[in-house]
């Protein structure tokens, strides 16, 4: 039932399709449709791996892709695609879809392991030998078809993304607002590979859940989130490999609420830093109480507005963005030492019990806005 019987055919077809438009385009020296060229140029990568890619069908709708990771029918997909209790099925190259059940989830990685029993199984995609992704190299998203669903480049590795990080509208230089411009607030990630595709907003959506390969067809990761303008976050293959045994054993790793200090902060100007005789720091402009106005986190530890935070757990809080990342790297309940300079200039060291971000706070504001709560 698979249509992979004649793998040569798509290449020929692709060539035949290209025959008509190519000569006039060259004659006019127009830029060729690079999207098509790229997808064809890296068609072999899709040819090699499309068998191991599934379409994930949730409550009757195709929501994205999944990656076949075992010969028994285990499929890894973005956890956010599959709500708890939803009816889920997977489909491979053919039209048939097979009901699947959730085996386990790894919420910090935004991955869910599904198990289906298709009539025939094909070569799974192996994560045994992941390569280290390198910034600047091409990244190819493979779906179930004979050419890649998206081609882009690795734009950043080992990137931390705070919870609810929004894609803010660009600076004032932006001039043509797009009605479909969505500001998506997503999950928090400790370590993702960022890749950007040239296929545009709608098409890039298609790479959700798709495995990502380099030009030699080596696995780089699984795309678990697609932001606007084709920015994609992928879980690096190494992390997928390390997470697989627990998932296959049916062990779910729950989401971790990001840590919360309960402070509003401002950047410290170099003059102020000089006056306080410190290299850099972050000024506390307000402390935030917890539920029922009970002091939590920073307030409970005696941190007051006007204090300057120098370091948390020995890591210099050189600016507000850094402080945000440090704080979010702790878990609620952790006790971390915080070094301060008080308004009078005396140094202090307190221990803050990391709180849980209150839900009514919503997602944290992005780091480049003037005022933040953390």
């Amino acid at each position, binding site marked *: 039932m698979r249509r992979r019987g004649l793998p*040569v055919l798509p290449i020929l077809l692709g060539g035949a399709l290209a025959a008509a438009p190519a000569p006039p385009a060259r004659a006019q020296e127009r*830029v060729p449709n690079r999207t098509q060229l790229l997808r064809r140029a890296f068609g072999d990568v899709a040819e090699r791996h499309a068998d191991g890619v599934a379409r994930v069908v949730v409550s009757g709708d195709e929501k994205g892709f999944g990656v076949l990771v075992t010969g028994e029918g285990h499929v890894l997909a973005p956890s956010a695609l599959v709500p708890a209790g939803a009816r889920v099925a997977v489909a491979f190259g053919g039209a048939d879809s097979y009901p699947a059940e959730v085996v386990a989830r790894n919420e910090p990685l935004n991955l869910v392991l599904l198990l289906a029993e298709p009539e025939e199984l094909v070569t799974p995609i192996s994560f045994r030998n992941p390569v280290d992704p390198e910034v600047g190299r091409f990244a190819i998203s493979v779906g179930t078809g004979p050419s890649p669903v998206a081609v882009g480049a690795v734009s950043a590795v080992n*990137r931390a993304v705070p919870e609810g990080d929004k894609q803010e509208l660009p600076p004032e230089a932006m001039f043509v607002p797009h009605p479909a411009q969505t500001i998506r607030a997503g999950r928090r990630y400790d370590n993702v590979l960022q890749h950007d595709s040239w296929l545009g907003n709608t098409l890039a959506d298609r790479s959700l859940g798709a495995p990502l390969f380099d030009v030699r067809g080596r696995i780089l990761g699984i795309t678990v989130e697609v932001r606007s303008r084709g920015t994609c976050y992928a879980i690096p293959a190494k992390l997928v490999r390390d997470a697989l045994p627990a998932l296959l054993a049916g062990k779910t790793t729950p989401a971790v609420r990001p840590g919360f200090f309960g402070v509003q902060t401002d950047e410290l100007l170099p003059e102020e830093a000089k006056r306080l005789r410190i290299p850099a720091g972050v000024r506390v*402009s307000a402390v935030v109480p917890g539920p029922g106005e009970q002091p939590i986190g920073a307030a409970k530890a005696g941190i007051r507005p006007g204090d300057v935070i120098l370091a948390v757990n020995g890591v210099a809080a050189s600016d507000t963005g850094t402080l945000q990342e440090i704080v979010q790297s702790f878990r609620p309940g952790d006790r971390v030492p915080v070094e301060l300079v008080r308004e009078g200039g005396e140094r202090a060291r307190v221990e803050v019990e990391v709180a849980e971000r209150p839900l009514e706070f919503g997602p944290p504001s992005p780091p480049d806005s003037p005022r933040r709560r953390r």
Partner: protein
Amino acid sequence: MLPRCVRTGIVALGLAAFAAPPAALAQEEEAYRKALLDVEERIVALKQKVAPATVLVRALVPGAAGTPGGQGMGTGVIVSGDGEILTCSHVVDLPDAVIKVRLSDGREFRAKLLGQHRPHDYALLKIEPAGAVGSGARAGAFPSVPLGRSADLKPGDWVVAFGHPLRPNRDFLPGVTPGVVKALGQTLEAQGMRRYPDAIMHDAPLFSGNSGGPLVDLSGRLVGINAAITLQNENGFSVPVDRIRANLADLRAGKSLPEKPKVGVLEGLTTSEADEQIRLILKLRPDTGEIVLEVAPGSAAERAGLSRGDVVVAVDGRPLRSGALRRTLAAKGPGAEVRLGIVREFEGREIRARLAEEEPEPREDEGGGEGGGR
């Protein structure tokens, strides 16, 4: 179910077909693929040189006591070993901003705004070696990116953008996003007063935070400064480096550009558009002529010999459209001697007049620094 060995066999067949393409078109495709692999290697190679010269730029604006300040965030590129940085005007043009730049090696410095071109959106900063922020930040020779020639770009050329979209990475390494030039010399009216008269249009993915960052060609030379995007499609726009190079000396000299253009004026002359009746009587061409309403005593207009009731019909031998006299003289510039064709008492004659410089009008924007008309 297909046994695994059969399937691998088919895959191998597919690859063999690719290696020995049956048609010329497939050969072309293979050539494109080879070119792409070369592009990838060049991107990875130039990254080693451009990334260290790419800086995070922050413009911090102090808040009044106890209130939050604001900040602008973007990217810049070091273009000389002594720490000159090109960026966008819109990243640093905040009143009383303290500008900090951070290299990916962790060094952070204060920088001074030397000069900028607000409407065309570029600015030149200079690292203040004494302004090292934090201990251990020392100025030496800075890594820099050589200026290339944007005039040499062609549509279809690969370019690479470096920058800090959305937020800096935790290691402060810039994001790397390749793309191709789609068009050159694009005029773009942006929000506010900004205007890009001859932007490079490309599809290297850009987002908020990329502003001011370098766009380099495949030899790693600076060809543009990333400035704007359209949200409707995937286009990014960069200020061409040739435009900036032409004004570098002015920027170094601390000038804010554009300097107010010098405008010529004939002092003491008040005119209004000739009406149909006058044109009929004097047999003037349609839509031409301005009638002199008033000549101030002792003014340049009087010295030139103009008097009330004269009708100006030509400037320097060219017919004068009604309503265009002021504009026409302004464009001749101060000090110019102009020949005015006039009709006085049904007789045509020509008089000569020397233009003065128009008094500057008060500037409406807060800018400062270029107030005088001289």
